[in-house]
């Protein structure tokens, strides 16, 4: 039987890198998905999500279990990804939270399990959203986090999650259907 997160975290706090390896393998897929949604490119997503795991290991003593491990890790990942985006946009006159993540080479549909035209168009529309909308769609739709968990990751009230998610869906539907209203 696979050990629970809490047991692995306890072992991590005692310096057990093997236990951390099991946690990393457990969440690597989801971590890469979130990173992909934020930075837009598969290679960069691997880089950013691995760096976030390194930081999680360094700060594992700070994890008090008030949220689950993945929610805590995702808030670290978000910080790493936003710092990465800010560096990439360092010379551009744009607001970080308004920036789109689509890399110059376009989307990487190889990461999608279903290669239907509609799925690719939707994913492309997600990547062209501003960061503040994109992260809501990624966390809510692709990671299926609850409003409470999203609030913990973004450090905002649950009511703000509700209004931001509504705005994000409206923006995404507008981009997907071509109807800005």
């Amino acid at each position: 039987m696979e050990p629970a997160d809490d047991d692995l975290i306890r072992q991590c706090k005692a310096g057990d890198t093997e236990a951390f390896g099991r946690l990393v393998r457990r969440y690597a897929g989801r971590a890469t998905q979130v990173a992909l949604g934020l930075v837009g490119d598969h290679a960069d997503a691997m880089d950013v999500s691995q760096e976030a795991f390194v930081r999680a290991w360094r700060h594992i003593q700070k994890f008090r279990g008030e949220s689950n491990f993945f929610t805590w890790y995702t808030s670290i990942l978000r910080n790493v990804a936003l710092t990465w985006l800010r560096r990439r946009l360092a010379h551009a006159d744009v607001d970080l939270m308004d920036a789109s993540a689509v890399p110059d080479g376009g989307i990487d549909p190889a990461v999608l399990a279903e290669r239907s035209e509609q799925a690719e168009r939707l994913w492309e529309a997600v990547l062209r959203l501003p960061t503040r909308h994109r992260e809501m769609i990624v966390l809510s739709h692709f990671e299926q986090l609850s409003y409470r968990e999203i609030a913990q990751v973004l450090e905002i009230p649950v009511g703000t999650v509700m209004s931001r998610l509504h705005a994000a869906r409206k923006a995404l539907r507008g981009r997907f259907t071509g109807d800005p209203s």
Partner: protein
Amino acid sequence: MTCEDYRPWISAYVDDELAGEDRKRLEAHLGECASCRRELEELIQFKESLAMVQFNEPTDAQLDRYWSGVYNRLERGVGWILFSLGAILLLCWGAFLVLEDLLTDGDVPLAMKAGIVLLVVGVVVLLVSIARERLSVRKQDKYSQEVDR
């Protein structure tokens, strides 16, 4: 409340995140507002469309490579810390010996000794200033903070 005010609630309703009085109020509004009912149906359809975007699950080999990448970074991090501490220690000790030699050497002109002292003081001031600035930016930068939770 206008229909526009209800729209974020509809979004939360679709996610099953609306409870209590708010849920009852929205359901009462949906019973009498065709426009908001249409919005609800469209949102449900859109959510189903988004469910089509599925990601490839990593294989065991990919997971091994991934963990290996993380582990290498952890190991390199420790290596860099030890290397940096050693380098700083050696540089400080070397600089101390060189300075001690120069400043106690009677053949070195006084002007040169004064220049060396000013140079060292200048480097120390610059390093302290850069360190303080970095610390201040780190404190104010919300994206550089690790989560204490």
